[in-house]
């Protein structure tokens, strides 16, 4: 009787042992492909960027990569192509490959939070650049342009240039990106105070040059008398300018952008684009890489959000700017 019970007892103990061993694995969130027990390799840094189809983001990503390399890390750029699914795959890859840190430019302020949390759960710190994620407890730090202030300054210049009456169009960026709304709200905090300025159309062109061209061509069919176009980034400003050029209105309609991209800064100098706002992608990228370095060396005291100043670029100030920043 006693001996007959022993196999049963041992089976039960084996089952408990299996459960116990499973419980000993480091916790990883559901869906993580991080191999258990594989510690992150602190000498590799991933740069995950929303798109490389826009020169501004190329500068952001390459500067982050180069600064990480200069600090002694292997650094690799991953292009999400503005696709949250691709971004998620990149995070899977980064987690399973044991990267030490992620310098991150998100595709979606809300949708990207889960990716950052997965990396955090796997012990990989994430530092956001330029684009905000709407969570305070996921990324280690977020280094972000002060878009609102930039568009307040741009809005004031818009009123000076366009006047206090007239019709204008706004081309929005990606609607899931908080930069889109911070820019739009900063601009409207000024322009909406002048009731004579009428916004006749507001449409997203998703920060994309060719989409901006198409959208504005369509809007011009129904609103041929606009006096200005406010674009949420410089790629859209160039697309809008092309549409106006094709419609023979490039000298009559004032175009305003945001970013400080090299081609637009040149266009401001040539009088084709009325103004833009210089963001400083190199400053943001370098700061993110340096924060990651500090973190990997044991630092833990980082502000959650770090606003980075932006500056108005118009015909009076354009000589001070170039190469995605202030000239030395």
């Amino acid at each position, binding site marked *: 009787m006693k001996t007959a019970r022993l196999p049963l007892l*041992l089976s039960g*103990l084996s089952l408990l042992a299996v459960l*116990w061993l499973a*419980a000993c694995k480091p916790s990883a969130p559901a869906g993580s492909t991080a191999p258990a027990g594989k510690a992150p390799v602190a000498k590799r840094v991933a740069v995950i960027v929303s798109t490389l189809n826009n020169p501004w983001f190329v500068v952001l990503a390459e500067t982050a990569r180069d600064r990480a390399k200069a600090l002694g890390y292997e650094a690799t750029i991953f292009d999400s192509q503005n696709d949250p699914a691709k971004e998620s795959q990149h995070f899977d890859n980064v987690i399973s490959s044991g990267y030490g840190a992620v310098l991150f430019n998100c595709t979606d302020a809300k949708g990207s939070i889960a990716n950052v949390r997965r990396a955090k759960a796997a012990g990989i710190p994430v530092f956001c650049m330029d684009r905000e994620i709407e969570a305070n407890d996921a990324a280690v730090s977020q280094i972000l342009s002060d878009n609102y202030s930039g568009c307040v300054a741009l809005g*004031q210049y818009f009123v000076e240039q366009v006047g206090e009456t007239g019709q204008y169009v706004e081309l929005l960026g990606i609607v899931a990106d908080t930069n889109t709304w*911070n820019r739009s709200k900063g601009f409207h905090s000024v322009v909406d105070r002048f009731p004579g300025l009428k916004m006749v159309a507001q449409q997203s062109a998703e920060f994309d040059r060719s989409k901006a061209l198409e959208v504005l061509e369509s809007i011009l069919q129904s609103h041929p008398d606009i006096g200005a176009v406010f674009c949420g980034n410089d790629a859209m400003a160039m697309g809008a300018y092309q549409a106006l050029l094709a419609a023979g209105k490039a000298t009559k309609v004032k175009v305003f952008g945001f970013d400080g991209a090299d081609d637009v800064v040149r266009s401001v100098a040539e009088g084709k684009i009325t103004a833009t706002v210089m963001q400083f992608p190199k400053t943001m990228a370098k700061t993110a890489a340096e924060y990651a370095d500090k973190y990997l060396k044991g630092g833990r005291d980082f502000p959650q959000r770090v606003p980075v*100043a932006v500056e108005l670029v118009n015909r009076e100030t354009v000589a001070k700017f170039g190469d995605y920043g202030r000239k030395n």
Partner: protein
Amino acid sequence: MPVEPSLPARRTASPRWLAFVLPVLAAVLLLVFPPFRVLPLKPGAAILDPAAAPVAFDAVTFSAVFWAAQLQPAAAVAPEWQPILVDLRRDPVAAAKQHGRQVGLGGPVYFFAQASGRVTAVERGRLLVAIDGEEGATVALRTGPVFGNTVRDGCGLLEVNRAPGLQEFNAISAELNRLVEERVLPVLKAGVVVGAHLTFAGCAEAPEKLGDGPLLTIIPVQAEVKP
């Protein structure tokens, strides 16, 4: 060939103590390394606690409370503009370092101070005021629409990481600007003429270099016209 019958394998009886020790050992292991833990969905916040439940940020209420409880008392004890203007006329960069505060990376430098002075000109959207005690020091006091982050960032009482996000932090700016327009500017617009004597407190962005006009433009958060 005869085959020897094989003997049945002898079954070794386990020691009796093993049946007691192994379960106890397993129980101890499970206690020390539990197979699962129950955690709240959001670490650090009990989801059943109403106080911890996420609440939409209300910039209007936040700003009204901040205005009365923090900004107005701080304005009443703010430093004087006069020494700031003396240093500003001498060296704007040094004055910014000594008296100002900078927000973020490379952001503008702001001052927050109080003064009294006499109105020298009434212009569209601003008053020009000669500051008492500093001859030739004229500032502009904004009376037109108020834009931007000068009040929010200039007062030095609000920090970006206290807000849920940048959109909410920007909403505070817009609301504080509205409160300035609603509560302070009417005092300065109602019948103020050249020669009127004012006391005021306000925030201003430090200039990179001085021009020919007023030393800087102040957004008032408190103002009183003296008889």
